[in-house]
């Protein structure tokens, strides 16, 4: 009996007992659905995060006395006790590290920003130098950036993000206006190009001012980071490590008392995090699939018993053992593949629903669909083989006698 014939016969029997077929495949449907939903959500997140890192620029290295990614607050006191980084450190890096392209100190603060009675809360205000735009790769597309001279002279000038510009100056006449940050008036000299939204964070709700001015208005004791760009990040980090350890008089044997941060690190951290979610999902899905497989095996045993006489008839008119084996195996595979298919559709639907309700991104990964198909076919083979063998090994005369 050929394959197509087997599938036809399988679909025929499935259709003649719809409820039972549905219940049989429920385990597989749920298992596959779980996989597809979770994988699609994670995949959507992945795409989004990759986008985020590419918009942030891949050549950026942050230097801070705090670790870039803190997973616990355990060593917090140790980090707090570390010497702060200084503007002089930044200058030394730009002088002595040939593989570092641009350097800027960074002093961040979250401040309310006001303009003529309008007010935006918790704006990300960064004190940076004139090179910051080249490091991050975000330039002004209206007006101009501030100059080295303006940084040196601690001018009250700023470049603002799109959100600020749109909120305060819907008519688009932002340049030359004075906005209020922490009680100081800053002259708007440029509007930054837009970056959009990332995981619910408005990336355009920002203001950049000279770091020198920032120090003037919030004091010098504020936590300072250094951000640099480099083509070869490993090389640049080695050079910076050398410079900083000497400047900070870090003892020979001691570990670095500062940390580097790159997007690769964030990405790795993110991958570890989603990897854990993945494992949990695989656990759940495997259980569901196992239950589904055992369910299918049970039903197939029942089916073989119910159709004993039919098997006898088929043997009497010339079916060989392997014909019967194939018939039931193909039937089981068809059931589980159909279950897998329904599971894939349900998973996509559920993922879509979750993403609509929760605003999480969502992307169906082709590999997960293919895997789901292969896994469900595999389940059919694994759990179908025993019932199919039972059918194939029936004695034709006994089978014909079966009432």
């Amino acid at each position, binding site marked *: 009996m050929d394959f197509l014939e087997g599938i036809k016969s399988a679909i025929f029997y499935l259709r003649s007992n719809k409820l039972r077929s549905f219940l049989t495949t429920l385990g597989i449907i749920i298992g596959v659905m779980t996989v597809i939903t979770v994988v699609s959500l994670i995949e959507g997140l992945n795409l989004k995060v990759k986008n985020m890192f590419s918009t942030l620029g891949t050549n950026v290295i942050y230097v801070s006395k705090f670790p870039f990614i803190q997973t616990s607050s355990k060593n917090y006191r140790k980090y707090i006790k570390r010497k702060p980084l200084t503007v002089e450190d930044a200058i030394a890096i730009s002088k002595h590290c040939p593989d570092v392209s641009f350097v800027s100190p960074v002093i961040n603060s979250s401040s309310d920003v006001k303009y003529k009675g309008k007010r935006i809360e918790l704006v990300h205000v960064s004190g940076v130098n004139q090179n910051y735009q080249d490091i991050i790769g975000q330039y002004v597309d209206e007006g101009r950036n501030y100059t080295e001279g303006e940084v040196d002279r601690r001018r009250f000038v700023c470049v603002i993000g799109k959100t600020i510009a749109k909120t305060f100056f819907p008519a688009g006449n932002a340049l030359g206006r004075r906005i209020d940050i922490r009680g100081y008036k800053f002259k708007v000299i440029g509007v930054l190009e837009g970056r959009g939204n990332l995981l619910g964070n408005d990336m355009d709700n920002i203001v950049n001012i000279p770091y020198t001015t920032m120090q003037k208005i919030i004091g010098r004791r504020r936590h300072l980071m250094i951000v640099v760009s480099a083509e070869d990040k490993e090389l640049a980090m080695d050079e910076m490590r050398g410079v900083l350890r000497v400047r900070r008089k870090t003892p020979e044997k001691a570990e670095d008392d500062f940390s580097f941060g790159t997007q690769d690190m964030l990405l790795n951290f993110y991958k570890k995090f989603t990897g854990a979610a993945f494992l949990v999902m695989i656990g759940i899905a495997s259980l569901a699939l196992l239950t589904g497989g055992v369910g299918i095996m049970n039903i197939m045993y029942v089916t073989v018993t119910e159709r004993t006489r039919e098997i006898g008839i*088929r043997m009497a*008119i010339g079916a060989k053992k392997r*014909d019967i084996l194939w018939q039931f195996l193909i039937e089981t595979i068809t059931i589980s593949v159909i279950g897998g298919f329904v599971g894939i559709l349900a998973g996509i639907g559920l993922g879509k629903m979750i993403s609509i309700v929760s605003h999480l991104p969502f992307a169906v990964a082709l590999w997960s669909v293919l895997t789901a198909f292969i896994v469900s076919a595999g389940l059919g083979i694994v759990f179908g083989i025993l019932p199919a063998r039972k059918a194939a090994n029936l004695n034709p005369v006994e089978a014909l006698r079966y009432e």
Partner: protein
Amino acid sequence: MLIIAKHLKKSYRMGKVKIEAVRDVSIEIHKNAFVSIMGPSGSGKSTLMHIIGCLDKPDSGEYFLNEKDVSKIHDDELAEIRNKFIGFVFQTFNLIPRMNALSNVEMPLVYRGEKTKYRKEKAISALEKVGLGHRIYHNPNELSGGERQRVAIARALVTDPAIIIADEPTGNLDSKTGAEILSLFDKLHKNGKTIIMITHQREVAEIASKIIHIKDGNITDREIIKEM
């Protein structure tokens, strides 16, 4: 000789009891014979038929079908022989439920690996031969007993086998329908088929040219009805 069987034995074991269904049967059937087998219930008729029909193997003895020793060959080869040489007709029709007449009749050709189109043509022509050309898409449960048995006969015929083996083909039918089925067998016999038929009823058995009487697993009598 189409069939030569010597000293066939077949017994079943039920716990400690050994039931000798066929004790020592030797039988010869030539091509285009029409043989009835009669005997009381439990005398071993069906068991013998299963061996002759290559559905089962004897415990001992020799069986030559078309000059080939088939008493010791592999199950798969037996299946192939059943498919090529033998058509079965049963008392209880034994059609596959939920499949229409056409699909039922096509089935032996499926196992022969024939193409869909050829199968359908052959099956329709077999159904027409038994007078069921107008019922090909009916499921068994939509057919009368006599019609079901005709479908079964069409299925037995569709591979154009040398031998038709019928185990009480009229046992579940009223006498009028039974007579129609018998005349169908008669026609097949005249067209060159070898027919072996089990029956309880003398008047049914007499349609054949020879009656073999069986009791307790042994042949007790061979009765010639008509000379060929």
